[in-house]
């Protein structure tokens, strides 16, 4: 008998022996909306920034592509002559970031087409985030051939570009609306990232920057395309 049938049979036998231990009373008073007060865009933005800052992340709210370019230039200049990871993401292309990086003279690398050991040397990674969750200050990274995992992961600094209208008040709203916002939750692997990587494994002392980024900077922008 295969492991599958052994396990299933054991479960079915156990359930027959003790078919239903559920209480009759099923009203628990649980209200699935944890943050009913978040309605307006400003509220949502404020909560996102506040919560991400609390866990050591950084946010900038920007209006228009030019503003994005401006602040990115400031950020990238610090990494002149160093390696910066940039995936072949059309949105990053549209925002003119590859061009910007050439101007600032950083060593731009596409982790998709370079060696792992070289990518691991990077000082910074720039990616888009497909959604944000205000309640926890979380960014949602949906992985695809154009948006690999490593650009957001290998370098000590991760800059994520997040469209303002893609920030949802909480996890439940995100999942409910992801589909209509064009994000197919179950089709692709994804990572929800909240702030820098951290550990408290030695005497509960909080150390930011464990195996992943030490700094997470989220640039929230509204696009010129409307």
């Amino acid at each position, binding site marked *: 008998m295969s*492991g*599958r049938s*052994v*396990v*299933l049979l*054991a*479960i*079915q036998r*156990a*359930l027959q022996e*003790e*078919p*239903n*231990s*559920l209480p009759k009373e099923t009203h*628990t*008073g*649980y209200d*699935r909306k*944890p943050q009913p007060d978040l309605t307006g865009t400003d509220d949502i933005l404020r909560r996102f920034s506040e*919560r991400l800052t609390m*866990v050591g992340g950084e946010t900038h709210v920007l209006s228009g592509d030019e503003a994005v370019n401006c602040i990115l230039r400031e950020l990238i200049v610090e990494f002149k002559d160093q390696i910066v990871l940039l995936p072949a993401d059309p949105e990053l292309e549209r925002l003119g970031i590859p061009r910007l990086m050439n101007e600032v003279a950083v060593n731009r690398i596409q*982790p*998709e087409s370079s060696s*792992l*050991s070289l990518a*691991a040397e990077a000082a910074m990674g720039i990616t888009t985030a497909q959604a944000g969750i205000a*309640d*926890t200050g979380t960014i949602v990274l949906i*992985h695809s*051939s154009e948006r*690999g*995992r*490593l650009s957001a*992961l290998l370098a000590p600094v991760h800059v994520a570009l997040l469209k303002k209208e893609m920030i949802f008040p909480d*996890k*439940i709203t995100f*999942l409910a609306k992801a589909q209509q916002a064009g994000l197919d939750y*179950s089709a*692709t*692997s994804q*990572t*929800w*990232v*909240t702030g*820098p*990587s*951290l*550990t*408290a*494994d*030695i*005497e*509960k*002392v909080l*150390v930011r920057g*464990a*195996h*992943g*980024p030490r700094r997470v900077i989220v640039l929230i922008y509204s696009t010129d395309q409307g």
Partner: protein
Amino acid sequence: METTTQTLKANIRSALNNDRLQAAVLKATNHSLAKRAEVVAELPNWEAMRSEAALRRDRTLTRLDDTLLELEKNATAKGIQVHWVADGEEANQIIGQICREAVSGSETTSTKGEVVKPLIAKSKSMTTEEIGLTPFLESLGFEVVETDLGEYIVQIAGQAPSHITAPALHLSRQDVGRIFVEKLGVEYREDPVELINIARGILRQKFLSAQVGITGCNFAVAETGTPLIVENEGNGRLVSAIPRVQIAVMGIEKVVATLDDLMLLLELLPRSATGQRITGSVIFFNRPSSSRESDGPRELHLVILDNGRTKALADPKLRAVLRCIRCGACLNACPIYRTTGGHAYGWTYPGPIGAVLAPVFLGLEKAKDLPFASTLCGRCSEICPVKIDLHHMLLHLRQEIVAACPQPILEKVMWQTWETVMDHPALNQALAAIPRFLLHEVLRSHWSPKLPLWGRDRSSPNLAKESFAQMFKREFGEHK
């Protein structure tokens, strides 16, 4: 494992003699409880959330077969390879096989001609600890590296994790410093940031050359066919990003029916475990990477493990233990754990949850002492985010153990005598006729300081000169 009375008592004694250990454990558990209290206080409906989570976990358990089949169907449709295993031995065999296939044909010698063992990187998983996966894979010739920093520390120290969510909780920074000197040959230092930096540097190289990634699985969503993990360090992200083969190992109870159920549990787990609103990352393994993707696992395996869990499922008094989401809050709150740390329990899962799981997973006889190593104070049940009635389960297991396992004759006789006396008021009164004053004096001078059962650390209570019955009669004269 066998927790005999002797080993358990010896473990406890050695913990009680280790002041450094006790201080580290107390400090860490207090820290976790305080952080938890902060983020729990901000949710006014916390109690309702606990009740709802308990109910939903129970609902899923009552149709566990269908829910797992739904998980399998949806996961398989996306290309995840699902393996069902009855016990740890089977799990290890299948995982070993997958690892062998993953590395076959790859280089096994370095440029210098030395044999290089194929490398497996693991992110934290108590389930793989439970089945002894690491030593098994090592016996097959793999190098297996734990990448969670706490887990890495205990791995190089040759120890086991002492806590479900904080494996190195029992070690002070000085302990870690000394372990690094001895095992890694570095200079002594005790600054946590510096120590973490050393470990990070070593582990970064391991991530880059790992050929297989092994993760646990905090939950698996049936309706979407999605295993997932929560973590903070980024090691889970790396283990599921770089190796082209990934294996996620889950107990059968880790399945949740819907994303909505998952969202509720994602509120409860990080808050209870680490006092966070959410962990640094939640990684959803929705499908293997396509050939166009340059990272992530091309091959994604999900191993679904029973290993004794169906024994709890079949027992109406114990089924609810399968609600457990392994947050470790019951350990932090338990007066025993807080005093001895996790190693005293002598098994993978310490604390109240471990004392319930051990007799279920290992059999009553093998773990017959653990359920008795509790004061039944109920802090565990009170703090449990899914409302498992842990201390009453321990009480229930005590009955089962006494009924099933041979008891010391002396204990048996003692209890039987006690019951006979208690059940016969005439006998009781006859005993009461012994001049109490005499008894009082004899006990006070001879019995009290020497009573071995009561231990060396406590004076025994004095038998009162008059019993309550005598006092009441003297003062009020009326009895019924």
